[in-house]
């Protein structure tokens, strides 16, 4: 297991709350992601993991709370400004630009790295040409990095699902973010693909130096790749710790199975993940 650096956290969330009308989706969420770490967020469905993601990336405005990236406050900023601060993300259900090619998708991801003006583009200035050529090379390199170099000319919507997931990661990475947020990257993957994903995430951290936060249900992937795990349950942080600590935590298993200590009678079991007790223990142990 890699050591987590002791430098100040890259992403710091304090007292985050999001209410949709009267329904409180998350509250009192504290999260601290160390620079250079792979940090997993787990928890049953409906626990508020994706809502927390959406608040951090300004997809939805948080109701209250404080979010800082490398010491700078980013809550309350519009999404494109947050992106320019260096946060990139993927989505639970893949959201590519379906009618654009893989290469074009990755070129869009470089939007904030390109500086040639509108007039330079029309005139076809030297800087514009140079920048476009570099962007293409970077895009093709990034497709190569995620393992789909042969897809460059394909429309995103015609690509197989696994490649779409990789393309989404490439699009997020190519902008040179400091923090990459993956929302269930292993969803719908078989064990082999899951292992390839673990490898990819480790290369993202080690070779690109990008900090990764991921929401994931596949325990095998989480335990293999994360240095730190935060467990969400019912809109709040249940606990946080190293994989070993989380594996040993009774409350985590209870939360996953829908049983809560102190609650009278069993609460309705979450629909997903459907993990029988024995299997969950086998995974965690």
């Amino acid at each position, binding site marked *: 297991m890699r050591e987590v650096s002791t430098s100040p956290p890259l992403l710091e969330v304090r007292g985050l709350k999001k209410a949709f009308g009267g329904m409180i989706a998350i509250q009192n969420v504290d999260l601290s992601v160390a620079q250079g770490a792979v940090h997993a967020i787990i928890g049953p469905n409906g626990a508020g993991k994706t809502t927390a993601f959406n608040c951090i990336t300004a997809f939805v405005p948080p109701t209250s709370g404080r979010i800082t990236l490398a010491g700078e406050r980013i809550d309350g900023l*519009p999404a*494109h400004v*947050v992106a320019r601060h260096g946060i990139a993300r993927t989505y639970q259900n893949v959201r590519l630009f379906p*009618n654009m*090619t893989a290469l074009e998708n990755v070129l*869009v991801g*470089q939007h904030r790295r390109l500086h040639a003006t509108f007039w330079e*583009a*029309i005139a076809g200035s030297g800087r514009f040409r140079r920048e476009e050529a570099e962007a293409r090379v970077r895009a093709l390199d990034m497709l190569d990095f995620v393992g789909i170099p042969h897809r460059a000319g394909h429309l995103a919507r015609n690509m197989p699902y696994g490649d779409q997931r990789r393309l989404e990661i490439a699009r997020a990475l190519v902008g040179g973010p400091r923090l990459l947020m993956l929302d269930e990257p292993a969803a719908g993957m078989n064990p082999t693909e899951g292992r390839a994903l673990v490898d990819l995430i480790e290369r993202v951290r080690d070779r690109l130096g990008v900090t990764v936060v991921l929401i994931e249900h596949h325990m095998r992937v989480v335990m293999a790749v994360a240095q730190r795990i935060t467990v969400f349950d019912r809109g709040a942080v249940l606990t946080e710790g190293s994989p070993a600590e989380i594996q040993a935590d009774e409350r985590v298993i209870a939360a996953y199975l829908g049983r809560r200590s102190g609650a009278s009678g069993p609460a309705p079991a979450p629909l997903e993940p459907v993990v029988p007790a024995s299997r969950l223990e086998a995974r965690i142990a």
Partner: protein
Amino acid sequence: MSFNTVTSSFKVTRRRRAPLAEAARVGLIAGAALVAFALIGAYAAMDKRHVVEDLLTLSQIACGLMVFAAGYATARDGRSGPAAALLHGLVAGAVAGACLALLVWLTVSVNLRATLVAASPALARALSLGAPVASTQALAQLPVLGALLAGLGAAVGLLPPAGRHAMTTGLGVVLVAGLFRDVFASMLDNLPDFTGPEIELFGPSGLNPGAAPVLFAAGAAFSLLRRRLTRRAGVPRSGASRLGSALLVAGVLVLPLVTNDFVAQVAMLVALYMLMGMGLNIELGLAGLVDLGFVAFFAVGAYTVALMCSSGPLAVADVSFWLALPVAIVLAACAGLLFGLPVLRVRGDYLAMATLGLGEIIRVLVLSDALGPYLGGSQGIIEIRHPSLFGLELKSPASLYYLALALAAVVAFVSWRLQHAKIGRAWLAMREDEDVAQALGIDPVASKLLAYTIGAAFAGAAGAVFAALIGSVYPHSFQLLVSINVLAILVIGGLGSLPGVLVGAIVLIGLPELLREFGEFRYLFYGIALVAMMHVRAEGLWPAAHARENVQPENAHA
């Protein structure tokens, strides 16, 4: 844009029927189409137009094509052997013909004219095809003719692809030559006469009967030859298509020189709509902004030129068109920016409604009492001077066509450059998924505003040319219909595709102008074509997405 999603939900699942019943059903559908065609008066109107001199009129060809298509469709169903398919074709055609015969009989024996104005004796006479009106012979020949035509359609449908393609190409050549007789005849008139007077392709209103089979054979032979050539490895497809586009460009350049003024005028109109189409293409095709008020910026451009280049009493200045043109473009862009600020924060359908309102506001403002004294109200502004170039006044339709074409070329170049730059990709991304685009660092309001402003600037340029072309501007030239037409051009051509704009403008603006004898029935076919288009090819005639895919795979490993 949601055009594709809407149309793709119309996938019809056909129930399996007995083949003969299916053939009868297709025949009935064709028959109903024929009867409707006759009863709306289209038959009588188009019967005056000879496609092949003294032999075939346009309405006969239209009916023939419907029956032919019915036969073709039954044969292509592909569930039965060739003999059975042929039989089914015959049945379908006979049924369709019988429907028409029934109509003729009813027209003569019952007075339908009280409700159906077109069901006149003239119609019965026309449909009797020279036989005594409503005689047994006249009534019997319709199902027989129908059966023959549909049988022919079925036979063509059964041919191997090469033969099928050759037949349809030949038929297409004859139709195009006959329909656009004026264009081709005037071209031939301008050419030196190689053939001598004894071989004349065209008569006074259509093709000569002798020339039609020759043209058919030529078209079919060309198709076969092309197929053979492209199959051989010697001629790569891209080379062939490059030759094709070179020919197209040459054709566009010399068109008004080799034809008459009317064709030049139509070409000018096509170029003008191309200009506007490319403006809206930036907004709708690239950035996905549904703008129904596009005509407003067109009006701003037109009125700017009108006020600056007129010798009339309302003129502010009387300067050269070349000075007024940039002013018009800048003013239209400013109008776009000003309008864009409040409306671009709304999305999708709401944006369409907001822009619709804005488009009307401009027209109503021009007509209002407040601006009437300055803009002439419904009287408009007249006596706009024609632009001049190197002391030469651009007055003839041909020279004005070149002006519009040159501007269209500039605009196409700018669009093309922007499309392949950061901002163009940002627009496409916004169209595809606005939230995701924003999460990648694209400022949605700024990039939408830019798209809206550039689109407005292009529309302003089109308006400026329009004012110079027509020589006068009136508020009624800036109706909602103009916006709708431009929108339809984009949808027909293919959203976001530059060649699509050209194709769409030719199909929707050029063809209806050249087919003036269709009169109001033009719009009927226009509508049918649009509906059919959305069913068969919702992505447009020259879609952008397909052009993009697999363009770069060979560079992928660079």
